[in-house]
């Protein structure tokens, strides 16, 4: 009756010791980046607070040396969508070890400030798992402001957003208003002469950070493993993966209704609704399918899916559905096929990334958007390309 619980392979102190050992070894430091993937086995069967402590420690360990380009997207992801003060603080601190600061980083840091300023907490980075209980310790907001100061003139574009925080009633204590002043002073200082631009381009990710990847038709993975899995929609109707996703391009996002980060699942599903509106405007809503698939199928019963979608303005009909798998094993099949960035404690999600996919007319993954917020118009443009590919018949070689 009371099922046995699977214990994680390493205790938290053992994990911290492993991270410290890797950080100290120049040959193996690069391995730490794999620890930032949500699906890493070390994160299975842990509570969300434990994951925060562990990922925070990994970020800090990476930041003991120069942060490599491969790690940058994980840091930006935390700044873009993180709402846990400890993790945001660790990401802000880690960014300061990146050797090539650019103007493109500033919007991410400013977004972090917006996400975290109303839930600031003291943080302590001295030892693994330590929580600050003294008001004199650093806080998430102070770390973010220190990072803006580090960016200096490269953060010029965010000046209009930062300046109001100097006001006595701007929601920051006097101590942090001094930090704002220091950041403003650094930002207004002259740019180094040998550095080209101090402006970010349209808030996009810096060069070298790939949150979108696309696969040419001849290198897309087949769907044989997944074709027969049964999906249930918001009305309780059953349909197989093949029946729903073959025959036209599709846009797929992943979410779960119990997600408590408003910058992730709730926003993702609301953005899917916006994508559907764009498809409607272009007269494509009947030629492209959309789906929001839950990570948490045992809890997200059809009625929950329907209400969650409805509350976020999602169009729901035969070609646009909120879906869940119904067989226990099928969640693992789905997870493997999409290589989902998610982990679980028992049946409950403990951490996940943002992820959206464009499937071609054979249901194969053609484009993926991961970690950073995706742009609705860009998703539509790429899906229209997929539609053209289908019409030209270039996607037919499996």
């Amino acid at each position: 009756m009371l099922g046995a619980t699977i214990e994680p392979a390493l205790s938290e102190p053992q994990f911290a010791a492993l991270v410290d050992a890797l950080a100290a070894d120049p040959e193996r430091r690069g391995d730490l980046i794999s620890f930032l993937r949500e699906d890493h086995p070390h994160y299975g069967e842990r509570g969300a607070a434990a994951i925060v402590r562990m990922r925070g420690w990994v970020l800090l360990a990476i930041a003991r040396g120069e942060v490599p380009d491969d790690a940058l997207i994980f840091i930006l992801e935390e700044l873009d969508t993180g709402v846990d003060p400890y993790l945001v603080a660790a990401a802000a601190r880690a960014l300061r070890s990146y050797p090539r600061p650019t103007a493109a980083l500033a919007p991410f840091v400013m977004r972090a400030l917006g996400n975290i300023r109303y839930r600031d907490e003291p943080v302590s980075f001295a030892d693994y798992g330590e929580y600050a209980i003294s008001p004199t310790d650093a806080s998430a907001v102070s770390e973010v402001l220190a990072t803006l100061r580090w960016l200096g003139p490269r953060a010029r574009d965010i000046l209009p957003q930062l300046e109001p925080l100097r006001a006595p009633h701007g929601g920051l204590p006097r101590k942090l208003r001094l930090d704002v002043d220091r950041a403003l002073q650094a930002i207004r200082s002259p740019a180094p002469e040998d550095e080209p631009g101090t402006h970010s381009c349209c808030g996009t990710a810096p060069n070298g950070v790939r949150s979108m990847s696309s696969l040419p038709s001849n290198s897309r993975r087949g769907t044989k493993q997944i074709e027969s899995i049964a999906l249930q929609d918001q009305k309780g109707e059953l349909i197989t993966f093949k029946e729903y996703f073959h025959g036209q391009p599709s846009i797929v996002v992943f979410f779960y209704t119990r997600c408590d980060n408003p910058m992730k699942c709730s926003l993702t599903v609301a953005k899917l609704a916006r994508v559907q509106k764009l498809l409607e405007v272009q007269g494509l809503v009947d030629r492209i399918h959309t789906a929001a698939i839950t990570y948490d199928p045992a809890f997200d019963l059809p009625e929950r899916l329907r209400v969650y979608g409805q509350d976020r303005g999602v169009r729901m009909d035969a070609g646009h559905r909120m879906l869940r798998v119904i067989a226990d094993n099928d969640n693992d099949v789905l997870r493997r096929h999409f290589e989902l960035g998610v982990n679980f404690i028992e049946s409950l999600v403990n951490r996940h990334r943002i992820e959206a996919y464009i499937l071609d007319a054979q249901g194969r993954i053609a484009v993926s958007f991961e970690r950073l917020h995706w742009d609705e118009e860009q998703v539509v443009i790429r899906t229209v390309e997929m539609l053209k590919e289908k019409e030209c018949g270039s996607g037919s070689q499996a």
Partner: protein
Amino acid sequence: MATKRKIGKRASTRKQKAATAAPVQSPENINDVRSLLKVLRDGSKPIDVRMAALQSLGAAAFSVADFDSVHADYIAALREVSTDSHEQLRRRALGILMRNKDGYAQKKLLDGLKNSAKALVPPEKALQLLSYDVHAGAYSAARSILKKPPNDEAKREALRLLAADTKSTPLFEKVLRDKKELRVNRQIAASALHSLDPAKLQARARKILLDKSDYSDIKATSLTALEQFGDDGSLAKDKTLLQSVNRFKNSKISAKYKQTARRFLSKYGP
């Protein structure tokens, strides 16, 4: 039912204590809030004064415009007093922290459930507070408590916490079926099943109503589940069920249960 009496008595004692506590001052600005934080942290101050400071801080979080500017200090102070020697202060501080899904409070509570020497609050309180955050990772601790509950309250809170666990459906079916189980626990099980597997609750609710020996309050709960969430078409055709509900209505039960039965029969009866 002894449990209900105990709970009622405890609640009224709490109300009396609250009425005699130190007067609560309304903080008007951020300087008042800072002063209150000092009082809260000061272990040399009388406990009633510190409790009043905590209560005022709770009010200030809503009423003082600039409260966000001391939020980090507030969290730090709550973490500090959550290990205070005074249990009531610990409970209150941990409660506020858990409503904020605070990792520090979660860790302390989980550690206390695993090792009673480290417990800051009794197990039933720890489980209640951990249930505020579905991501706290407390299912395993709750299952351990259920295997060997230290008291009825701890068992009840463990069941409440597991009501969000999709793997606990068989557990709740068993609890709801078991007529020897405390009725409050059976009602928690009914509610949990409604959330986790509504079809299973519907099937079980029908069986309970057909069972002449089951308790009237559990039958009333089952009746409400069927009336509010059942399939109208099949309920109206279920003559055996309708006869059972009619019998229930005419039995020696309280007026409110009779009303529940009448409402059901007027909706589905001939």
